[in-house]
């Protein structure tokens, strides 16, 4: 079955693909170029204006210091990554689940949602002290702090997204005889997905904050630990090193979440 319309369409699709491939490559090259320019300006400004290393060390000095002790940075990176991911995944899953529960059961929403709000007004530092008391200096404790920062925005946005479902579409599904489960999986969750991803992008950054703050309550590995140690010894280069590593982790994680969003929520970007 190769009607002329079908072939011309698949040709068009192929042509579109061959155009977008170098397009994304070009974007990547531009990004690299931008980073390189920023690095050159950093390095140049420090040399040109004679900025004291106490305020801003040269980028090359920082990178060389990192390269001198790669193990500490790699271990710290992986450890913080693990805490962030566990906190993000559990916070995201719990948030979506609670969003659905609050959407479905009004009574529960009125009972529990205010408690959620109150929980979020407790400063994360105070909450972190409690968690460390309960769970000690474990990876789990850090993941729980990351979870604490992430589940709330995901809950709120899931609920918001579910409430934007068009009642006419619900009526259509019901006229087909759809069950509540079919309604949720085929209509309500897909409708809420763009809104859920708004929260997940936010949660990607917040979970990293939670992990690093958690490490400040005491641990031996992690980017937060590196940062704290450098601060105590006033090792400016090491502070900048930990900062760059955290930036790399945060940006990378955010980019992955955004890429997954573009794949899954392809329709809302096109409209």
């Amino acid at each position: 079955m190769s009607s002329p319309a079908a072939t011309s369409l698949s040709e068009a699709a192929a042509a579109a693909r061959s155009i977008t491939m170098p397009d994304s490559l070009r974007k990547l090259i531009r990004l690299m170029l931008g980073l390189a320019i920023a690095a050159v300006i950093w390095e140049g400004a420090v040399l040109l204006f004679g900025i004291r290393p106490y305020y801003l060390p040269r980028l090359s000095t920082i990178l060389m210091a990192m390269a001198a002790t790669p193990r500490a940075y790699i271990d710290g990176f992986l450890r913080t990554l693990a805490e962030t991911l566990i906190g993000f995944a559990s916070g995201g899953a719990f948030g979506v689940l609670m969003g659905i529960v609050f959407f479905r059961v009004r009574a529960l929403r009125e009972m529990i949602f205010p408690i959620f709000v109150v929980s979020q007004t407790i400063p994360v530092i105070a909450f972190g002290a409690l968690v460390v008391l309960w769970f000690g200096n474990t990876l789990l404790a850090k993941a729980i702090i990351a979870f604490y920062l992430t589940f709330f925005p995901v809950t709120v946005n899931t609920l918001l997204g579910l409430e934007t479902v068009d009642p006419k579409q619900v009526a259509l599904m019901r006229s087909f005889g759809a069950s509540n489960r079919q309604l949720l999986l085929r209509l309500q969750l897909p409708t809420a997905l763009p809104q859920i991803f708004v929260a997940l992008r936010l949660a990607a950054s917040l979970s990293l904050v939670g992990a690093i703050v958690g490490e400040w309550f005491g641990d031996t590995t992690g980017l937060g630990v590196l940062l704290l140690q450098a601060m105590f010894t006033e090792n400016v280069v090491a502070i900048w090193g930990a900062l760059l590593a955290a930036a790399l982790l945060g940006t990378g994680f955010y980019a992955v979440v955004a890429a997954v969003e573009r794949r899954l929520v392809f329709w809302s970007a096109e409209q």
Partner: protein
Amino acid sequence: MQAARLPHPGPATEAPQAQPRPEPLLELRAINKTFGAVAALSGLQASIAPGEFVTVVGPSGCGKSTLFNIVAGLEEPDAGGILRFEGKSCHAADLLGRVSFMPQRDLLFPWRNVVDNAILALEVEGMPRDQARAKALKMLPEFGLAGFEKQYPNQLSGGMRQRVALMRTFLFERNLMLLDEPFGALDALTRAMMQRWLLDVWQKYRRTILFITHDVDEAIFLGDRVLVMTARPGSVKLEQAVDLPRPRRPDIVTSSEFVRLKRTLLDAIEEESMKSFQSSIAQEKPQ
């Protein structure tokens, strides 16, 4: 409605009307519906024979949509009304999943491509996706959508989106199809094309259709019978049989018979429109 729950011996033993016509597929008698203080429908009566194409016209706000929601099973009429489907008394809720319903807007899901939108109802019924897709793919050319199966709704024109929605309705194979102003949002040319196309498809599949419209020409051109509704509270003001020969050609709209029918219907609608206009001027005076 105790009687509604009693089992009936079968359609053959029941002859509610002494008419030569076959037993109606859908029958509505003394249907009322009020929303708070507003009476949307009052004493509505209608019946639709199997295979019939019935169109409904009326002034805006006459309760057409309420009528539709009742027949689609989405809304329950007030107690006391009689609703019969396929020869049995039933509640409106029993009609959920038994009538294929197409609302005014196409309501396509933007995350589903043409085929997956079309098979939505089949999926809800539990048919495996592959089987449903194969079925839909066979129907695509007839709906003018061949080659577009992988496109997403935002890549389609208004007419095509509407055809996808119609295909979704057709694939949900039920004896009664409810179409609520399906072509209302289309431009005049596309609309005329879609009307002719709908008649072709209807003649092939012979489903019973209840079709709501604002457009008198459309109501006459498509229907075997036109029901004119009164101003709110809605009921059937006039039942006009359309004896124009089928298949109907586009130029039928200029025939004297067509014009005569149109005049009768327009007069009836005009009268009701004036009523609803005046009552809206009188600041929602209680009816």
